[in-house]
């Protein structure tokens, strides 16, 4: 007789969610999260049913809903981790600018950072999970009576993603002597970027090339840009300003004229 493996509550939860993600990957995202059932995931995970149900029984939600909310959060957390990694690269590159004091050069370095980071970001978001996240979001937004549990899950996850982005951007912008304009906030800018990332990602399925060429190289040579990068550059030009409390700021105007 095969001895059954025992699972702690945390293990059981992780295993079932892992199985759910696996199912999602296998069957594609067309049916959305709604066709990833708790039962299938439990069966695939090999976790005994009673333990699994105990783990996904919350005070408010049925196990199936609790499971989907957890699956969604897990999807989005991966997405958030990607975002944080890309921004980490940005900060690393940005440190070089600390050494210089030429506002014009600083602006062009900032632009190059946006270009490189958003190419990396877009590449990672192209994965099925990134697309799944975006499509779930849009599906939720379009629903007249969205499932409150899903909306709540999105809200939590979005707050955490935009916070992470906002903190990371804040660090980058400090390097360049920039800040959000007084009536807006980094968090609001981060939320715009997350939205733009979602819609541009979806359009990768349309007829147009997702990469554009722009003459932004050091000698005006053509460089590859993601549409997301172009949009982010636009936000920098419209929603930021030089921080008057610091001695040195990148000269944003040079990017326009």
């Amino acid at each position, binding site marked *: 007789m095969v001895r059954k493996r025992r699972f702690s509550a945390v293990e059981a939860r992780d295993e079932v969610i892992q199985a759910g993600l696996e199912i999602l990957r296998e069957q594609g995202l067309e049916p959305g999260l709604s066709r990833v059932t708790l039962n299938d995931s439990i069966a695939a995970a090999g976790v005994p049913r009673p333990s699994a149900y105990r783990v996904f029984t919350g005070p408010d939600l049925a196990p199936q809903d609790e499971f989907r909310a957890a699956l969604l959060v897990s999807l989005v957390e991966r997405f958030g981790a990607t975002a944080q990694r890309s921004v980490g690269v940005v900060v690393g590159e940005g440190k070089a600018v600390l050494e210089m004091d030429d506002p014009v050069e600083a602006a062009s370095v900032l632009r190059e950072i946006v270009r490189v980071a958003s190419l990396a970001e877009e590449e990672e978001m192209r994965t099925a999970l990134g697309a*799944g996240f975006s499509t779930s979001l*849009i599906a939720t*937004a*379009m629903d007249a009576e969205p499932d409150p549990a899903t909306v709540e899950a999105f809200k939590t996850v979005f707050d955490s993603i935009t916070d992470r982005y906002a903190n990371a951007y804040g660090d980058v912008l400090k390097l360049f002597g920039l800040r959000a304009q007084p009536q807006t906030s980094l968090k609001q800018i981060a*939320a715009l970027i997350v939205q733009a990332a979602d819609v541009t990602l979806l359009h990768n399925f349309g007829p147009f090339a997702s990469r554009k060429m722009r003459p932004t190289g050091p000698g005006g040579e053509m460089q590859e840009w993601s549409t997301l990068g172009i949009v982010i550059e636009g936000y920098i*030009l419209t929603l930021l300003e030089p921080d008057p409390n610091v001695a040195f700021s990148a*000269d944003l105007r040079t990017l326009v004229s």
Partner: protein
Amino acid sequence: MAKKRRFSAAEARAEVIKAGMKLVAEVGTEPGLARVRLNDAIARSGVPRPSAYRVFTNSERLPQSEFRAALLVALVREQAPISDGSQVFDAASRVLANNKDLLDSGSPTDLAWLLREFIRVIGLIKSNELRTFESAIYSMSLRSLAMDPYPDPDLVHLFDSLIRRITSDFAAVYDPVVKQFGLRPRAGTSVEEFAELTVQASGMAILQKFPSFAEPVLRPTGRDGELLEWDALAVTVHGLVLSMLEPDPESDVRVDLASGVPSAAPVSPSQLGD
């Protein structure tokens, strides 16, 4: 006994889809197609259930999915005369007419202000327009394409031509405006590409239904620096104008795009007064 009408496979398909479209028209597209069920459409169409199921059975998909894909194709085809940009064009003409003095003044900073205000107003109008039936269908098709591992070739084709058409319609609307403000696309890009990005950004209007995103951005862009409401689409388009367009040296019109971008040494209003 009433004689039952007989349906060919093509007729059965057409009738069920027609019934499905009526259901969509009744319930609206907001709930998504997921709530339009094959069974309801069959019942409505009067096609015998076995014939209807045969028509929507294929090797790759469940009848329900096959039906929804076919319904989506039919909806996109039906709605093909989606926004051609004329509403936006009318609104654009109004904003320009109301500010004719600024347009004629020739002052590069006044023109830059007018352009910015123009984008803000159009963005608000466009965002409202985008919360319509047509755009819901548009985004549903997009979503269906993105999520479907075996997208329906008809749908892919229809969607591609639809989005190409919307983009070229928009480019046609933007082209004279870009010229009117003495602008041109920067090297390597085109008005078509600019239009394409604004079409993509339009998707943001749909996301505004999501409470976390609904907050408008306040920007000090009034004539005297007062705070005005910008929606996500308009901010994005303003950014695209700054990053994708530039003053055309061949044009008689001079617009100072950079005047809207905060500079390192902000000039205080009192200094401006002299």
